[in-house]
């Protein structure tokens, strides 16, 4: 089966500094994929680049196929049909994501007119239905309100309504709940998973919150310094991470059950993109690093069904983890 979205060898450089260094992601129809990693690891850039939303000075290479059709470098008109129509995106900061001088109705209608070919009263009726759907009370009247008249959680609901307006096949949610209170966070995630079920959409959830990803995604890809270092079904990744970086991320989370244990932190910081070490980018922070780690950057290799990892010490890493668990 061909994946819905297939990204291969996607690389991005800003002014000659590489920030994305060959990313491969395949997203199936209706699948929920989590993308985790520290800030600056390239999670958002991957999707902004795929949709041609990066500033002009960004150099993007590789391949992004949607239903087998190349969209990277596609003509503007074709990209405009993809954006919002096939792949919708919502962003982190709801406060600044909507245009402050346009009413909600105008901003919602735009997508409806562009992708659904609706006209006149049908636009308004559909805009109202969408606002209702995402749980904005008194939708008919609130359509004429401006973004500053809504709370952060409500704006994120409106963003979701806007994303749904084009009936997309994929929803890219870039840290959709990071700027919200914990209770609102849960409501928004609940809303996202319910509309996803209803519309049969695939979803990419970009987050640095591992708990959010574990609960909402079928599969997880861990990114580090512009590369994917491990991919696995959610439950497997959280139970049994293989890449030392993924282990580090999960080791830094407090367990909900079982005995209390000391949380571990990953030493050091993410390397500066302009001064990437040769070989594995994680080697300088890795407890298992050997001389051979700095020779060449490891590529993603399968280690089990549906699991890939980019680490030449994967086996050793796995043993260490099991050793810790046996203690």
């Amino acid at each position, binding site marked *: 089966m061909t994946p819905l979205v297939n990204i291969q060898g996607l690389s991005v450089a800003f002014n000659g500094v590489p920030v994305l260094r060959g990313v491969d992601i395949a997203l199936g129809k209706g699948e929920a994929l989590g993308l985790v990693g520290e800030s600056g690891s390239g999670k958002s850039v991957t999707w*902004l680049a795929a*949709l041609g*939303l990066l500033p002009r*000075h960004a150099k993007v290479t590789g391949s992004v196929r949607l239903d087998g059709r190349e969209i990277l470098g596609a003509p*503007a*008109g074709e990209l*405009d*049909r*993809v*954006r*919002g*129509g096939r792949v*919708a*995106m919502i*962003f982190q*900061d709801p406060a*600044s*994501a*909507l*245009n*402050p*001088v*346009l009413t909600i109705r105008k901003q919602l209608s*735009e*997508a409806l007119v*562009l*992708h659904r070919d609706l006209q006149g009263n049908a636009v308004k009726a559909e805009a109202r239905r969408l606002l209702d759907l995402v749980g904005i009370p008194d939708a008919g009247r609130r359509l004429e309100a*401006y973004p*500053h*008249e809504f709370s952060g959680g409500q704006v994120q609901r409106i*963003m979701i309504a*806007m994303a749904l*307006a*084009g009936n997309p096949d994929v929803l890219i949610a870039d840290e959709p709940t990071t700027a919200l209170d914990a209770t609102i966070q849960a409501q928004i995630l609940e809303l996202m998973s319910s509309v996803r079920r209803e519309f049969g959409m695939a979803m990419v959830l970009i987050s640095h919150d591992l708990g959010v990803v574990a609960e909402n995604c079928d599969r997880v890809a861990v990114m580090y310094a512009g590369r994917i270092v491990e991919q696995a079904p959610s439950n497997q990744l959280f139970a049994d991470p293989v890449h030392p970086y993924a282990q580090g991320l999960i080791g830094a989370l407090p367990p909900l059950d079982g005995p209390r244990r000391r949380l571990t932190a990953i030493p050091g910081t993410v390397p500066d993109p302009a001064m990437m070490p040769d070989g594995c980018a994680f080697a300088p922070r890795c407890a298992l690093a050997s001389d051979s780690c700095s020779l060449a950057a490891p590529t993603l290799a399968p280690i089990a069904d549906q699991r890939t990892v980019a680490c030449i010490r994967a086996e050793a890493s796995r043993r260490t983890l099991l050793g810790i668990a046996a203690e």
Partner: protein
Amino acid sequence: MGRYLAIRFGRAALTIVLVVTFAFVVLRLSGDPALMILGPEAPPEVLAAFRKAWGLDDPIWFQYLDYFGAIAKGELGRSMRDGRPAIELVLERIPATLALTLPAFVFKVVLGIPAGIYAALHRGSAIDRAVMMTAVAGFTVPSFVLALLLVLVFAVQLGWLPSGGQDSWRHAILPIVTLSLGGAAVLARFTRSAMLEVLGQPYIRTASAKGVPWRKVVTSHALPNAAIPTVTILGFMVGTLIAGAVVVESVFSWPGVGRLLVVAVANRDLAVVQCILLLVAMTMVTSNLVVDFLYGFLDPRLRAKGAHA
């Protein structure tokens, strides 16, 4: 809303009173109108009679109260040179000034705003750099230097246009060009930075991510937001329509309000200077008020604040 309006109008009135007071005091401290108008050779008794006739020998606070009393009655005084009402002298010069400043205002807008938008949309391109270099040159070169340069080239060297006077529309070309270039440069720079600021905002990315074509992102998402700071500068320019051409009118001997002001200041023709300054203060204040209301129109966030203030 009523309270908000009252505060705005109150502030505007206070501004005008301050300007007029300042002008009144400075003019009376900086020279004797009798000496200026009658000349240093005039006999002392003539000078004394002149001062008495115009009330210049009264204490300054008395003159000040007298002046405001007259304003309240709608009288703005008479010219000390020919005894005509000052307001009449000023009003008859206004059409000549507007004949320069209005076309210049249109050119500023028509040249400056599109140039700024274009430069912002093509940031870093050769055209952006060219526009910005021209703009920097345009507002760093003082208008009298630019005026003299234009006279040198188009009047003296090429002989295409007259260097001064007000006999035909051809006489208006160089003054209008001089006024337009500086203003267009300021507007271009301002519009460019306002646009760049807006284009970097997340909601622009949201619009693109929705599939809105770039041209429409610019016209319906970026421009309405960039208009807010640009209107400030436009308001300021409207405020200078009446007396913004002092230097240019002098260089091109154009008989407008600006030149009247220069002559009246030189002569210490108090009533005329005060009348012009009052008029200038009023246009400035009015255009500022209009800008404030435009903000409310352009930015729904301010509308809400205004309503609560």
